[in-house]
């Protein structure tokens, strides 16, 4: 049961986290609906069920901090404050999209919000996130870089190169492994030498072994704040393994049938971060009316943003030839 007397988080921050997670959930659901209507083409990787991780970091980070995420990055982008129409517009290939349709679902980028890109080749962005962290150290500024990735990433070389470099250079960075138990279609334990794919590798890089229930938003927030403070104080990198679960398949094409029904049911019914957090807010005596008002507000925001995105024009064909180079063009000979 909750310990109301020793509440280290407080109502204000909890409601902030509630609003954040709800936004991630409802936008992702909307993205799924728009797919079914064939308004979103290409592929998409939804983070339904994993909202507590991006949500907690979204609350804990400051403006100016850098985040890097994977192709499953709609939630992480929204969590930094990117507009809903910017995200949905990009998914639908509209001019209002964050990158005017040039990147798509797997590459959401919003530099003004510190969203330094979504990366679709496993592992690469861990090394790149080291670079923004290195820049903060080089410039003697105190931004923190946070890099989100999945359990499958722990088996690619770049993961190991990046952790080693972050440690030897004492970089202000937080690596967040979202272990949703499946590497795409394959149970992660079947293809990994250790039980906890990130945490059990931490000691190889002289990092603490940190495992957290990634669906417990309060716990996620505590862990995120601790790791961010450590980085900001110049005490070096952290590696966090957050256990979570995808509510949907790996991508648009995947119904996720390789997972046992009982397992899916257990995570959906008993371990859903949003459902559980709503109950926790009530346990902390937060007025249900306030909780519901936030729900209505977010629903309304998502609907309005959807309308804006659908009304936004498609990109002009001339955009194909822009922004290869910093001069704005694509010419390669005189």
């Amino acid at each position, binding site marked *: 049961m909750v310990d109301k007397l020793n509440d280290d988080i407080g109502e204000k921050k909890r409601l902030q986290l509630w609003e954040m997670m709800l936004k991630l959930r409802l936008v992702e659901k909307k993205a799924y609906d728009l797919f079914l209507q064939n308004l979103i083409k290409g592929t998409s990787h939804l983070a339904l069920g994993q909202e507590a991780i991006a949500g907690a970091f979204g609350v804990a980070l400051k403006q100016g901090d*850098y985040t890097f995420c994977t192709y499953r990055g709609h939630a992480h982008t929204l969590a930094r404050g990117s507009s809903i129409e910017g995200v949905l517009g990009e998914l639908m290939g509209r001019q209002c999209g*964050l*990158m*005017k349709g*040039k*990147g798509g679902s797997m*590459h959401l*980028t*919003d*530099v003004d919000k510190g969203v*330094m*890109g979504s*990366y679709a*080749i496993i*592992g*690469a*962005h*861990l*090394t*790149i*996130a*080291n*670079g*923004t*962290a*290195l*820049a*903060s150290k*080089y*410039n003697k500024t105190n931004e923190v*870089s946070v890099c989100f990735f999945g359990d499958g990433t722990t088996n690619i*070389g*770049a993961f190991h*190169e*990046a952790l*080693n*470099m972050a440690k*030897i*250079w004492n970089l202000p960075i937080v690596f967040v492994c979202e272990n949703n138990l499946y590497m795409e279609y394959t149970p992660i334990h079947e293809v990994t030498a250790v039980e906890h794919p990130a945490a059990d590798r931490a000691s190889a890089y002289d990092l603490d072994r940190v495992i957290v229930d990634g669906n417990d938003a309060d716990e996620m927030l505590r862990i995120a704040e601790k790791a961010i403070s450590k980085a900001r104080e110049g005490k070096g990198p952290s590696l966090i393994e957050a256990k979570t679960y995808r509510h949907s398949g790996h991508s648009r094409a995947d119904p996720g049938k390789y997972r046992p029904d009982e397992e899916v049911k257990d995570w959906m019914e008993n371990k859903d971060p949003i459902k559980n957090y709503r109950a926790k807010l009530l346990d902390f005596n937060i007025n249900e009316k306030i909780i519901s008002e936030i729900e209505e507000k977010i629903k309304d925001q998502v609907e309005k943003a959807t309308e804006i995105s659908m009304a936004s024009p498609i990109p002009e064909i001339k955009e194909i030839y*822009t*922004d*290869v*180079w*910093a*001069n*704005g063009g*694509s*010419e*390669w*000979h*005189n």
Partner: protein
Amino acid sequence: MAQLTYRASVSLAIAQSMRKDQKVFFIGEDVGAAGGVFKATVGLLEEFGKERVMDAPISEQAILGAAMGAAMTGLRPIAEIMFSDFLAVCWDIVANQIAKTRYMSDGQINIPLVIRTANGGGSKFGAQHSQSLENWSMMIPGLKVVAPSCPSDVLGLMDSAVKDPDPVIFYEHKSLYAFKEEIEQTDISIPIGEANTLHEGKDITIIGLALMAQRAKEAALILKDKHDINAKVIDLRSLVPLDLQTIKKSVIETGHVLTVEENPRLCGWGAEISSLISEHCFKNLKGPVTRVTTPHVPLPSADILEDNTIPSVELIVNEVVKKLKENNYGNNNAIPWRNS
């Protein structure tokens, strides 16, 4: 006036850029305390300290990733990949990340980064430490590709590469590190995308890059002395951006073209140039464009094998003579990959 080696011009060029701009730093394997495996970065650690000259682990992905991330914030890293062959282990970072991020982000992100790397054969290092890989990077939109042929070009092109707002791959030729040149002024800048004429002539246009440009120049001197042929030798200096205007101007004058490439035959940069020439100057051509390349084989190691694989001065001379004196356009170093 001082005599400077290509090797010394590399460390000087980096030092000059670092003195001018605090945003420039240098990262690579064995580059600091050891001064580089080719001794091309000697003295940098002593002058700039560990914060700006960083010895990295053998982690090419982590090196280029860190350089890219730093560049995304506005710093101007110079990253070394010890041998260009090692680009293969970090090609994701080069081809998917560094090259494409500006475009995919709709121009939100600039990546002002220089990747310098020791390229090319002549050292009998075998097939994994001798390749000429300019064409790998040339075919990827978003990368600029520079390959200097002499110390002054190293100085001038490095200055431009560091200042460039886009990623530049800077291919230094291993067999040129000992090449010497009298240099009056070291703090110079040469725009990327302007070819250089190494020898004037109106009978034939020979187009080369890096070591092959120097060999083409030597060939031109022999052609003039012994065969009364005046060859114009164009050193491209960069493949992207490409100075097509200089090529066109010369081809219109000569009507004969020979490209000299160190890379294996298939998809070498000479094929692209040949295609551009046929598009832009078809009516000026007096015969087909000839491509001199290494055969389509991995580079062998033994002296006699490597020497007979990479285009030599003699081969260039022979091909030009065959073309102009014997009307023979066949190029017999290119046969093995195709049926006849």
